Each structure stands twice: as C-alpha cells, then as structure tokens.
C-alpha cells in the first residue's frame, strides 16, 4: 500500500478507488478528499437503473457509492489508517434520484478509535438542498503498527 506518512490525500484516494474493481465498474470518481472527508461522484448510467419505467437508479448502486465514499473518509482520516472494511451501514432513502443526473456522495468520518471508525454520509443529485439518501455506518480500522 501507499506510504501513509507522505501521501497526498486526493492522489491516495484516486489510487485507492482505482484498485477497487466494483467502484471502477460503477464509474465512481473522486471529487474531493480532505482528512476524514470524501466526495465521490457516480455518473448516470442506464445499466444501474432499478425502476425502468421511471429510469431511477437502483438503491443498491447508491449504497455502493456511499459505502465506498465512507471507506475513503476513513482511510483519509489520518495517515496511520491503511485499510478499512464496513461493519454495518444503514441507508435511509429520502426520495428517488432524478433520472439523467450524476449522484454525488459526501462522507465524513466523525469519530475514530484504534479499531473502529464512525461515518455519516449523504447522497445528492443536482438539487443539493434535497438529499436523495443518508447513511450512517461503522467501519473497521486497519493500522500500520
């Protein structure tokens, strides 16, 4: 893995996501990363539709985006965190995402212990004032030492 002590956050996140085949398959892109925070985007894709009549993206694809975004928020929290895995993730679906629009996830790792990281995330489409979904989760923390 990348040497955590001198890593560039955005660069690290891009390399991290590029190594995750499922995230690549869903077309996820890193928009912004800062310590404990991450913003990812997933372009609209007809293959990810769950409701074909309305053309709405499947909740599972939104989950995958928020899960990945949460994981990046955890590994970017501090340089000693080398890896993470999801322990649990709860998603609340507020409304269907508007067809044709990219979905953006913003995640924050708001607390971390030696072994566990706590994350909240939100999924948005172009209407940034009305979230599509929110998530809260606990992640494992794999440290260097």
């Amino acid at each position, binding site marked *: 893995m990348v040497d955590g002590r001198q890593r560039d956050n955005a660069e690290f996140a891009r390399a991290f996501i590029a190594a995750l085949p*499922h995230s690549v398959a869903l077309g996820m892109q890193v928009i912004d990363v800062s310590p404990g925070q991450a913003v990812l985007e997933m372009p609209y894709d007809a293959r990810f539709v769950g*409701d*074909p009549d309305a053309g709405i993206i499947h*909740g599972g694809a939104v989950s995958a985006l928020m899960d990945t975004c949460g994981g990046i928020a955890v590994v970017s929290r501090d340089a000693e965190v080398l890896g993470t895995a*999801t322990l649990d993730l709860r998603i609340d679906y507020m409304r269907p995402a508007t067809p044709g629009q990219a979905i953006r996830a913003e995640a924050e790792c708001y607390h971390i212990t030696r072994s566990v990281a706590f994350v909240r995330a939100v999924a948005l489409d172009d209407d940034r004032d009305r979230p599509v979904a929110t998530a809260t989760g606990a992640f494992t923390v794999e440290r260097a030492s």
Partner: protein
Amino acid sequence: MSTPPRTRPEPVQVIKQRRDAALAKLVSTVPYIGFLGITFDRRGDELTAILPYDDKLVGNPVLPALHGGAIAAFLETTAIVELSWAIAWDEIEQGGGTKPVPTGKPKWPKTIDFTVDYLRSGLPRDAYARARVNRSGRRYASVHVEAWQDNRARLFAQATGHFLMPGT
C-alpha cells in the same frame, strides 16, 4: 353418499411454467439486476437469490473480497424481489392458478431504509441469499435477508429493511 366431482388438477409442468414466467417477468425488467448478474432459483414459493462471482464485484483486491456495496445491492435486490414475489404469488395462485401470468408492469415496493451487517468478508466465489418477509401490511413491510457462501449456517452478511408497499 357420493363426493362432488372435482376438477382435474393442472399438470405440474403447466403450474411450473406459469410460476417461472411470472418470476422471469419480474426480474428481467430491472437493468441493475442484470448488471450484477443476480439470478433467482425458485422452489415452490421459496426464492434463493444467486450472485455468481465476477471480478467486477471485488472491493478488496488484496484479500480478495467482495465489495460491501455489491453485497448491499445483492441483499436489497433479494429483499425487494422476495417482497414483490410474495405479492405476485397471491395473484398468480388465486382461484387455483387459473389466471395467466399477471399482466401489466410489476409494481415495486420502495425502500425506506436498509441496514446491512457485514459478518465476515465475502470470498471471491458465488453468494446466495434468502429473504423473509417478517411483516407485510397495507402500507409498510419489514424484510430480513441472510446471505451465505459455502455454508448456509455461516452467514457472511445479513440485512433488515423497511419498504413502502406499491400503490401507497
């Protein structure tokens, strides 16, 4: 005393065909189910969802392990299809199954919330899931899902979700 004449039961293959056609109709309309490669094995009214291993489902290439997001999507899909199937089942079996496959587009329940517990990492092999509708009311339903790989008793993930029933 004589028993009233009974109508002859339908041949088993006719019943199976009708049920399988109804299930295929339900599943084939959703692009994301096809993208993930999920299929459903039907035994009577019981469904088992199958997620065949594919490289694009991997989230940790070092272990390797399935992506948590792919697992969540698999479980959520299993829950939704099970719930829709339970609704459709009553429809196709009504009147001893004299009705053809339900016409019109399937009406899907909407996910209100979904909570996934990741119990162990998903190995790079096929995964299976079964959902149980714990409560299905007029407006809301609660569904539990269990997923395993090699051993039915060793779950690698489980989930509970609440759904808004179609037409509400």
